[in-house]
């Protein structure tokens, strides 16, 4: 029984809450929106029981600013939403980045633009990775593709946020949020990384000079300097935090590139193809920012042919092209608006290229 109970069948949305709570996130602020409503529902149940706090904010904007305040106070805090709600948080995310506050933001992406629908989608890749808010900032963006990764990467997100004092986005989609899969809990029990103390936090200026957290830099050249410091931080993140996975990539004749739900679909396609003797391989970025450009360039250069698969009209494919340059032929297959590509469709697209 105890052996068995280590694995539980759980939805993606619930896995996020478990990962967050395991990471010590006791402060959650959110606003209902499908397909992520299970997250606030679970948090509302659990947090009061473990000394934490759940607030259903009056809006997504209030939620991100509650996170801003809680983060400034030095606690781990999170908000989650889905596409339209994430758009509303863009000012707040830019402020978090500017004030260098750690926070975790989850986007269970749905079909857009506008109200769109509530199906799974990857239509917010640009928004997440290029910065939907104003100014020269970046957020770390993680793209989980399984329930286990939703848990693990949520856990990781809090550490990365604290280490780099930066907002971290988790970009998943409605299908990942709603689907169930077994989650192995022990993976989450790893100790937290060795984190710097939050000496900058606002806790009351007791026995120390007052702390100030802000993003306004009006003096001549001040903001520019601040931006270059941010830039250095982003460089450091690029050097240290790139994560990706390869699957049958070494000997592939065609390299699929996909993240999140489309990556797991592609994995199925690779398996299917391999059984038929067709040498497909998969390159799966796990960090969408920083994008694993060099690793991809290396692999793509060897193989020479890359097919990017997205649940949108073509967004990550720009990063793929930027990474690979002309060292490989680049192709794209995508379905926007909540259309989920099936194994067969992708397989057919691959065949055409072989």
């Amino acid at each position, binding site marked *: 029984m105890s052996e068995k109970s280590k694995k539980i069948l759980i939805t993606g949305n619930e896995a996020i809450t478990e990962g967050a709570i395991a990471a010590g996130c006791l402060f959650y602020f959110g606003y209902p929106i499908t397909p992520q409503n299970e997250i606030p529902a679970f948090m509302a149940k659990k947090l009061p029981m473990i000394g934490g706090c759940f607030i259903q904010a009056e809006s997504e904007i209030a939620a991100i600013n509650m996170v801003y305040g809680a983060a400034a106070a030095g606690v781990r805090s999170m908000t989650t939403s889905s596409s339209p709600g994430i758009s509303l948080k863009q000012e707040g995310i830019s402020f978090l980045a500017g004030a260098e506050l750690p926070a975790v933001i989850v986007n269970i992406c749905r079909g857009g633009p506008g109200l769109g629908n509530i199906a799974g989608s990857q239509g917010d890749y640009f928004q997440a990775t290029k910065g939907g808010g104003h100014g020269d900032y970046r957020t770390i963006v993680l793209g989980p593709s399984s329930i286990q990764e939703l848990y693990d990467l949520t856990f990781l997100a809090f550490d990365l946020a604290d280490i780099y004092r930066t907002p971290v986005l988790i970009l998943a989609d409605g299908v990942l949020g709603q689907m169930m899969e077994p989650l192995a809990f022990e993976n989450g029990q790893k100790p937290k990384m060795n984190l710097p103390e939050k000496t900058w936090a606002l806790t009351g200026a007791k026995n120390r000079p007052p702390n100030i957290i802000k993003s306004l830099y009006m003096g001549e050249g001040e903001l520019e300097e601040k931006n270059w410091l941010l830039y250095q931080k982003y460089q450091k993140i690029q050097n240290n935090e790139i994560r990706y996975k390869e699957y049958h990539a070494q000997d592939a004749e065609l390299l699929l590139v996909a993240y999140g739900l489309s990556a797991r679909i592609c994995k199925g396609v690779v398996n299917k193809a391999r059984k038929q003797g067709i040498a497909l391989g998969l390159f799966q970025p796990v960090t969408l920012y920083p994008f694993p450009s060099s690793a991809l360039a290396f692999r793509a250069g060897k193989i020479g042919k890359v097919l990017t698969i997205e649940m949108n009209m073509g967004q990550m494919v720009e990063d793929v092209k930027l990474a690979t340059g002309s060292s490989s032929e680049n192709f794209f297959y995508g379905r926007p608006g909540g259309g989920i590509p*099936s194994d067969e469709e992708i397989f057919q697209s691959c065949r055409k290229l072989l």
Partner: protein
Amino acid sequence: MAEKKICIAGSGGQGVLLLSKILATAGMLDKKNVTLISSYGAEMRGGVINCTVIISDEDIGSPIAKNPDILIAMNNYALQKYGPKIISGGLLIANESLIHDSQFFGNNIKASFLPATEIAKTSSGHTKSTNMIMLGAFLHKTKLLSLQNIQESIKLLLPAKNQNLISLNLEALHEGMGYFKEEIFYD
């Protein structure tokens, strides 16, 4: 075991999600890979609900199945909507009690009809355990999952304090497993 895609469909209140969760949990306990995804809609009630459970020895790619290997159809609408999607050579288990129109499909399907609602009503006095009857039938027809872990799953997923409910459901499960009806072979 090759990947099996099971579609469970019915209307709200028919216990489609519970049935699906039991299947997936049992698969997990059987040390298979499993995924479960349920449809979710903007409309609240009255719509048809469908879940897809995939059970496999290998990693599972898409949790969504355009064409299931097996359909568990809890009512007429479910049959109409998802029946035609079963793959050739696939299996249908349908709740005959709520089906008034079964002359639709289709290629090479093994179909098992059982009057699950009535069986439930007769044996337990109400229709709530229809889903367990269907589960029993599914188990009998497919032998896809171990009975032990199905039972274990039922216990895991129902509130432990309500022993009564658990035994009621287990009974219904066996009722469903025991029921036998000749197979019709469409082709």
